[in-house]
């Protein structure tokens, strides 16, 4: 059962090949069998089985929803009523969320079965899942390598077939980068497409939740459940949600692909460049035409991002003060001591680093030079994309400059870690949707192809990704030992 896609599982549930309870038990067993990957922070077995029983009843009564009875898991950044929601942090190790995130409510309403909460970088700050309070997640393709981050548990769980589909969040590449490093499909929707209500905030103007699955078709099914306007999220965009499955079968004749020359410059592993080029060749055979585009301001994306994201993080994380919920230090001497020590003891090193940068960038006398400047640069980057996308349908390029690096290899050098986000963060700054799909292997490690589209053109991205997956089998490969 674990080798099937969500689309196949939905058919199997309907034909009576297996029940949701059987399916749920099967995946729960795999989660136990492969717990050395450390992909889960919390497993909600009892609740999952109760949800599965309810789903079986709905199926017997003729439920038509594709998600009914399908096991999923949530990144531990989404609040789940009555279930620990840690965000990968000691600060929230004791936090039982008192409400559901909108995304969680939508999956519950659709009849999905939640198996548990997935490991992640602390407060989604990290590119390797090594900043988690619960320890690093291992990459199923090589357990000495990182799975990427921050949605590292999400990507590893799907790659190891512990769950057929999961949620992730992407502030600077946190869905696409781990998807690429673990050989799965991950979609970051347009900013405003998926509700942020109940999704613990890191950088509010960049954060966006999205699906992580094995195939584009499954990503379409998950996005259908997740997307939509939400009154509870003040930056949610009120726009109808199209039928994502309806257009994935469309042929690609006449598709124009833009290749930004800045994506293929210095710093990109030659092996990855070759894999991206052969993927683009595959698209040519599918009827696409290719042209070069330019993003002259791309090189400023990292500095702009590493001002804007920490600035917003320092403001968002000021709510963790040891008073109303979360970690509180022992025997505080006075109120200042309570704040300072609760925060100092509750947050890990990377979170502290970003709070410090953000606090500095927003402090009196520096605001214009850093934050305002970064927001202006953000507009220039966004305009580069607008210009390119007025000429082509989609932009393609790599997701990461190299394949998954070794555990511990970059932890001592935060700047090296930040620089590896070069191909993903500009898309968050612009607020555009982008998908990462498996496109090959380099030294037996997966490589992702990134496809970037127009605002709200998730349907087009899923279509373009799905057509590639009809003629390639990279997305079907499974890591050794997890077949």
């Amino acid at each position, binding site marked *: 059962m674990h080798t099937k896609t969500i689309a196949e599982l939905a058919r199997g549930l309907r034909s009576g090949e297996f029940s949701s309870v059987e399916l749920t038990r099967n995946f729960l067993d795999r989660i136990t069998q492969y717990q050395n990957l450390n992909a889960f922070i919390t497993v909600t077995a009892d609740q999952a089985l109760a949800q599965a029983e309810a789903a079986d009843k709905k199926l017997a009564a003729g439920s038509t929803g594709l998600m009914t009875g399908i096991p999923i898991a949530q990144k531990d950044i989404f609040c789940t009523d009555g279930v620990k929601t840690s965000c990968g942090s000691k600060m929230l190790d004791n936090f039982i969320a008192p409400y559901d995130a909108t995304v969680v409510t939508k999956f519950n309403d659709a009849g999905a079965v939640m198996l548990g909460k997935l490991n992640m970088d602390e407060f989604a700050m990290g590119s390797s899942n090594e900043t988690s309070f619960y320890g690093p997640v291992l990459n199923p393709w090589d357990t000495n390598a990182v799975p990427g981050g921050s949605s590292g548990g999400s990507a590893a769980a799907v790659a190891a077939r512990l769950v057929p589909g999961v949620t992730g969040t992407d502030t600077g590449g946190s869905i696409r980068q781990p998807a690429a490093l673990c050989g799965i499909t991950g979609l970051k929707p347009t900013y405003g497409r998926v509700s942020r209500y109940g999704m613990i905030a890191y950088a509010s103007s960049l954060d966006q939740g999205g699906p992580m699955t094995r195939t584009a078709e499954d990503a379409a099914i998950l996005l259908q459940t997740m997307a939509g306007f939400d009154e509870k999220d003040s930056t949610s965009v009120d726009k109808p949600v199209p039928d994502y499955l309806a257009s994935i079968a469309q042929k690609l004749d006449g598709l124009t692909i833009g290749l930004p020359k800045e994506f293929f410059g210095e710093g990109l592993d030659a092996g990855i460049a070759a894999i991206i080029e052969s993927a683009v060749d595959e698209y040519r055979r599918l009827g696409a035409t290719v042209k070069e585009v330019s993003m002259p301001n791309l090189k400023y994306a990292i500095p702009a991002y590493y001002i804007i994201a920490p600035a917003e993080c320092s403001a968002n994380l000021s709510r963790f003060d040891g008073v*109303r919920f979360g970690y509180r230090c022992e025997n505080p001497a*006075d109120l200042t001591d309570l704040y300072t020590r609760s*925060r100092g003891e509750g947050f890990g090193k990377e979170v502290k680093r970003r709070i410090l940068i953000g606090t500095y960038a927003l402090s009196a006398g520096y605001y214009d030079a*850093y934050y305002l400047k970064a*927001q202006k640069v953000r507009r220039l980057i966004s305009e580069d994309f607008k210009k390119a996308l007025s000429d082509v349908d989609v932009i393609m390029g790599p997701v990461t400059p190299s394949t998954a690096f070794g555990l511990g290899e970059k932890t001592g050098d*935060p700047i090296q870690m930040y620089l590896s986000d070069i191909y993903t963060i500009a898309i968050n700054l612009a607020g555009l949707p982008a998908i990462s799909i498996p496109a090959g292997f380099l030294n037996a490690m997966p490589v992702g192809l990134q496809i970037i589209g127009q605002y709200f053109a998730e349907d087009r991205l899923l279509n373009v990704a799905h057509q590639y997956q009809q003629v390639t089998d990279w997305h079907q490969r499974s890591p050794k030992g997890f077949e």
Partner: protein
Amino acid sequence: MSLTADDVKKIAHLARLGINPQDEDNYAQDLSGILDLMVQMGSLDTSEVLPMAHPMDQSQRLRPDKVTEQNQREKFQAIAPQVEEGLYLVPKVIE
């Protein structure tokens, strides 16, 4: 741009963030490195550019001034570190 351990101490105080004294130099070094990256933006002329806060330049939506939420004080306080008679407790502020 170079920050000292003293600067780190000041910034940490602004953020009410406890930092181990032995980590201050390390943070100063990391932060200086990150700020060096930021210098690159200085070479871009942005005098005519409007800052961008929302990708769609959407402004904050307003809602009617109506009660929509129920009071759930007990549920919310069940996860608080210390409460008494519906109040959150902190160390004494006024002598």
